[in-house]
């Protein structure tokens, strides 16, 4: 029980970039989980009863950068793109109006980084539940993304 562990850094919750608040009406989507150049996979959420988060990977097979600039769902009062950042990493905070998916690259939204935040869930999310969110890209438009709730 020796060797005291010294905390190295302060990570801290939160967030930010509000890319659009609760649009609940689902419009016709280009296709399910994919458009010409954008593919979204491994979308999952976690058990939650008020605030939830969706994590996923966005792949841009195109030759130009794409921007994720809005999100929506019917499961929560509002659906927003957020970022968690680390305070002690050296940078000051910055407000990001949209998330860039570079041409030919993938961006993974994962715990401790970017996530789609579900604010004011209408029902609890339980393991195995499935729902759909919409992500809007500057060029590709709205893409529907199936999400599964994984246990912690």
């Amino acid at each position: 029980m020796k060797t005291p562990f010294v905390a190295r850094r302060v990570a801290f919750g939160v967030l930010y970039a509000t890319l659009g608040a609760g649009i609940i009406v689902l419009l016709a989507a280009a296709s399910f989980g994919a458009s010409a150049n954008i593919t979204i996979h491994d979308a999952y959420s976690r058990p939650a009863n008020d605030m939830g988060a969706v994590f996923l990977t966005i792949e841009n097979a195109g030759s130009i950068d794409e921007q994720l600039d809005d999100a929506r769902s019917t499961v929560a009062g509002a659906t927003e793109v957020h970022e968690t950042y680390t305070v002690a990493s050296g940078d000051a905070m910055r407000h990001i109006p949209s998330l860039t998916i570079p041409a030919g690259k993938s961006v993974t939204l994962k715990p401790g980084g970017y996530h789609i935040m579900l604010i004011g869930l209408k029902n609890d999310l339980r393991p195995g539940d499935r729902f759909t969110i919409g992500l809007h890209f500057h060029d590709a438009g709205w893409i529907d993304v199936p999400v599964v709730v994984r246990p912690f």
Partner: protein
Amino acid sequence: MAIHLMAIAAASAVSALVGTAAPDFTLTDQAGHAFSMSGQRGHVTVLYFGYTHCPDICPTTLAEVASVVRQLGPNADRDVRVAFITDDPERDTSKTLRDYVTLFDPWFLGLDGTGQELAPVYKAYHVWFTKLPNHGSAAGYLLAHSSFIYMVGKDGVVHYVHDWRDDRSAIARDLRKLYQ
């Protein structure tokens, strides 16, 4: 920048707790029972400060703690006292805390108190948090907050303080040392 510097100050201050008796306090758990730190002698106790509106770090950390605790043994989640202490008494209630902590483990405790009761606890544990400006988010205000996992041994001493980003194996290893 100010937030950055305050966070660094919190990180260095919290390490001074290691090897000292866990500062005592009495707060109220989600069932309305008093929870005092000095009353936990004989049990490994894990403390984590956060808020139930936390979208990412708090659930990630609590899920990790739950997983690590359950790996210790069949009744470990009952033996190890895991207490989530709110940084947000303004919005968190015993009900929201109960609903929240039990997502992770039925034995987890959510501790609340009045602002006056909580302030000295934050100070003693070098908990740092600040409300962030709301850039139009429907979430209301969010908090920037320190995110330490305090591990207190059966002897009532703070033996380890981990950052939530620390390697799961390191967190598991240290908790196991205290639990054995």
